Every structure is written in C-alpha cells, then in structure tokens.
C-alpha cells in the first residue's frame, strides 16, 4: 500500500494519530469479536455459573436445530425479496428519470429522501398502513376479498417486512443506477439509435449490460443491507413472528442472546454471521478491484 512520495519524519506522531481509532477498534471491535469466537466454543450451565468447553458442539447443534434452519431460509427469502423488489423498482425509476432533462433533479429530490428514514421507522410506518384494524391497505384489500392479517399469517408478515425494507432501500439503488447510467457515454446510445434499435431494445442491449457492474455491486450491498441493517424493521414490527415466519438471522442472534440468554448458541450464531459478512465483503472488494481495471 502506498504512501506519498515524500513523508513526514516522526517516530511517535503517527502512532499518536492512530491511537484513538486503534484503541476504540481494539476495545469495541476486536475484543468483542474474540469474545464471540471464544464463547461460541463454550456452554453455560442452567444457572450461568459455570461454563465448559464444548468445541464445535454449539455449531453442530445449530445446524441440527429446526428453528435455526428455518431462520436461514427465512433470511434467504427476505434478502432475495427485498433485493429484487427494491432494485427493480429503482431501475425502472432511474431509467425513466434519466431520460428527463429539466425535471431530472426535481424527481431525484422527491425520490431520494426515504434514505434518511430509520429502518425501525420504516417498519412502524408500514405496520401502521397495514394495521388490520385501522390500516388503509387491509381495508382496500378487503374490498377485493382478501383478509390481510400479518399477526396470524406468516406470508402476510413476510410481505410486510419486505415492503418496508425495500421501500427504504429504493432511494439508495436509484441513486447508484442513475449515476451508472449517466456514466454511459451518450455516443453509444446514439450509435445504437442510428443502428435502428428502439428505445426499449437500446435499454436491454446497451444500457443494461453496461450497467452490470453497478447491478452486481448493488446486489451485494442490498443483500448485506437486508441481512444486517433491517434489525429495526423486524424488531419494531413483527418481532420475528408470527410463528418465527420473519425471524431473520440477525434478529435471532439478539433474541436468543438477550431474551433467551443462550449465550453459547448466540455467540455461535454471531460467528456464522461474521463469516457471512466477511465473505460478502471479500466478494465486494474483489469486484471493486475488477471494476477499477475496466
């Protein structure tokens, strides 16, 4: 890794400059992560007085545990649903805004602000709209003959949290798609038009393939978002229910650790999540390296 051609001399100064960040990192990141790793190898007795070393037993148990496997599959459905929904809506909006000249910035402003809304608030908003007794959407659904109730129906609950999570993420994806489209040289579009491609054909044969780096990047980011940043949405609305239908992994770590007080299992789940984050980060970075070489 580079520095400047010329650097400052100094024996202690660089360490002093790094100290605040390094100390905080050690205390609040490295040490807890180590603890999670360590605790994942232990089991506490019923009274939390003694713990014994159990090796990988906590992990083995997890993968035999129906509720954990359920949580895994719930997470997959939730992540895929959120990613697909928010990305496709964002792509549609971005490609439409991109053809506007004068109104582009107005529409952009109107579309980006949900980024500022906390996931928990997004959850509360949608929870309220879909509230079976006073919500407006269940009322409309009832008119077409559908009985909405996310308190009983697992699929209704899942749909609700996906909607809330995707709604908040559209603005983010929209901005990246728009930036990606604006970096495509206009001459390519014009060449395709001269070659006789219709607007829709131009989009799918020129714009979309050239956007693929952005699309791939956003896929990774959205999966990370859906897996880790949506705790608030779940906690403020379904709390994992009904019947664990929306119990995503990151919520389960919290629930098992803080509510269930099963530290060994929660630590093992933490470790698994860390492995997933590391893997996703590596994918993302490898991709960025590739894009730089474009």
């Amino acid at each position: 890794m580079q520095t400047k051609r010329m650097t400052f001399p100094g024996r202690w100064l660089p360490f002093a400059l790094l100290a605040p960040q390094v100390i905080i990192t050690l205390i609040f990141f490295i040490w807890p992560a180590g603890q999670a790793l360590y605790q994942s190898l232990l089991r506490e007795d019923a009274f939390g007085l003694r713990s014994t070393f159990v090796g990988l037993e906590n992990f083995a148990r997890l993968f035999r545990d129906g509720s954990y496997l359920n949580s895994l599959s719930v997470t997959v459905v939730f992540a895929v649903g959120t990613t697909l929904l928010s990305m496709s809506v964002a792509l549609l909006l971005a490609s439409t805004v991109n053809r506007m000249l004068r109104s582009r910035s107005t529409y952009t402003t109107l579309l980006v602000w949900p980024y500022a809304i906390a996931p928990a608030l997004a959850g509360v908003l949608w929870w309220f709209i879909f509230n079976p007794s006073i919500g407006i959407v269940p009322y409309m659904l009832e008119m077409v003959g559908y009985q909405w109730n996310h308190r009983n129906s697992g699929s209704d609950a899942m749909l609700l949290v996906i909607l809330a999570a995707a709604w908040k993420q559209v603005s983010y994806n929209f901005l990246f798609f728009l930036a990606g489209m604006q970096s495509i040289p206009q001459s390519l579009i014009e060449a395709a038009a001269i070659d006789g491609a219709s607007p829709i054909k131009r989009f799918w044969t020129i714009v979309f393939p050239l956007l693929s780096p952005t699309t791939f990047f956003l896929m990774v980011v959205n999966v990370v978002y859906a897996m880790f940043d949506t705790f608030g949405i779940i906690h403020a609305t379904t709390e994992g229910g009904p019947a664990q239908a929306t119990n995503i992994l990151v919520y389960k770590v919290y629930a098992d650790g803080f509510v269930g007080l099963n530290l060994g299992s929660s630590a093992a789940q933490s470790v698994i999540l860390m492995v997933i984050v590391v893997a996703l980060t590596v994918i993302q970075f490898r991709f960025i390296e590739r894009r730089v070489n474009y």
Partner: protein
Amino acid sequence: MVENRPWANGFAHTVLIIGVALVVFPVYIAIVASTQAPDELLRGTLPLLPGSHGIENYTQMWLSGVSSTNSPSAALMLWNSFVMAMAITVGKLFISLLSAFAIVYFRFRFRMFFFWLIFVTLMLPVEVRIIPTYQVVADLSMLNSFAGLSIPLIASATATFLFRQFFMTVPEEMLEAARVDGAGPMTFFKDILLPLSVTNIAALFVIMFIYGWNQYLWPLLITTDPDYTTIVMGIQRMTSEENPQWHLIMAAVVMAALPPVLVILFMQRLFVKGLTETEK
C-alpha cells in the same frame, strides 16, 4: 435524448409520478394520522385527508409525550438523538481524519498491521457482535450514558478509507511546497489538508449524521433510563403498548424523520457525493 416523442414523455412522467406517490404514501399517511383526534383512529378506517388536531397532537407529543407510559417528551428524545448523532459523526470524522493522515503521510513500523486492524472493523457490524460488545460496555460502566451510546459506534473504516483515498489524490507538490514553506506535520494538516478536505468532510458528515440519528438496536440495549431514550427507539416503545396512541406516535414519527430528511434535501449534492464515494 436521442428522440423526443410526446407520448413517451407523458408515459415517463406517469411512471415517475406513481413512483413518487408510492414513496411518499407512507409518510403522507403518517401526517394524516398525526392530525386526527384520538378517537378518530379508534373508530376504524383512517381518513384520507389531514384532520384538524395537528397542533394539539404535536404540542402534546413535543412537551409531554405519551402520558400513559413513562416515555419522555419528544423534545427530550429528539435532543438525545441529536446529541448521539453529533457525537458519533464528529467522533468518526475526528478519528478517521487523524488515522488516514497517519497512514498516508507517514512511514512507520507496523503500518500495514494497523491498516488491516482498521479494515477488519468494516466487516463487523454492531448487530453481529452485539452481546460481547454489550458486555464490554457494561464492564466499563458506560450503560445509560452518551459515551456508551456513541463511542462504540465511532470507529469507522469507511470514513478512514474515504479520507485515505482522498488524501492520495492530493497532489504531492502540496506537501512539498508546504514543507519548503516551513510547515510541520500538524501545521500542514491544519492549514492545507483540512481546508482541502472540506467537501469530503461535509459529504461524510451528512451520511454519518443520518447513520447516527437512525441508530436503533444499540440505544435499545445500552439505555434503560428514560432520560437517554432516543426518538427512534422511543417510538418503538410507544408502539409496543397495549393500546398504541397512533395519533401521537405518528406525530413523533414525523418529528423523528424530519431532521435527517431535511439534511438530505438541503444538502442533496453532498449527500449523493458522500453516498456514492463511501461505497466505492
């Protein structure tokens, strides 16, 4: 655009207006709900137009909060959120600028080691290592304090990387000219590097402020004392009551959303820059 067909433009506007409507819809509903009388919401379906009780609902929420629980006033919760968000933002910017400066402008032993140490934090969101981190904060007696709310969230590889990236693009000659002009490391940092980084700092400020303001899980765990309740988690507490008072909750939601939304609207250019550059 290559061509300009009126019907195509009309169609595009229609798509966008529907999109904007869908995006605005939940917040519109929140505004409508926050202006209704309490019994209006218990009667069944929500009206589609704002009611006339806005001022009293917002005043009540702002001054005293939801009376049935001991949840604090919105004024206090907003203040707490503001303090936490500012502490996180300023703290992140401060430590990231310093460490990026060290990594780019000095050569020293274990430089790569420290770089990787900071890099690792990028991979460990607080949600993932929540319990051991909680234990550390509890052991340090930082529960129910602004220090406990903010300091553990301050370490930020993202900001450090962005500043490193930016510092690398500052021309070499800036440093050389400054040294010929007699500037030492900290003089250079203060007189040259910081002023050159203003736009980047502002862009990151927007992103970090939103990040800090929207913290949820962490305050939920760290604070039990109502005096430290932040607005986002306070709203969750209000909704989990037996009979949620939606007209007040929605007033609180609007107030909670307003500061970060205003930040984005007024600093859109910086926000977009901050967002697209921190992720690259």
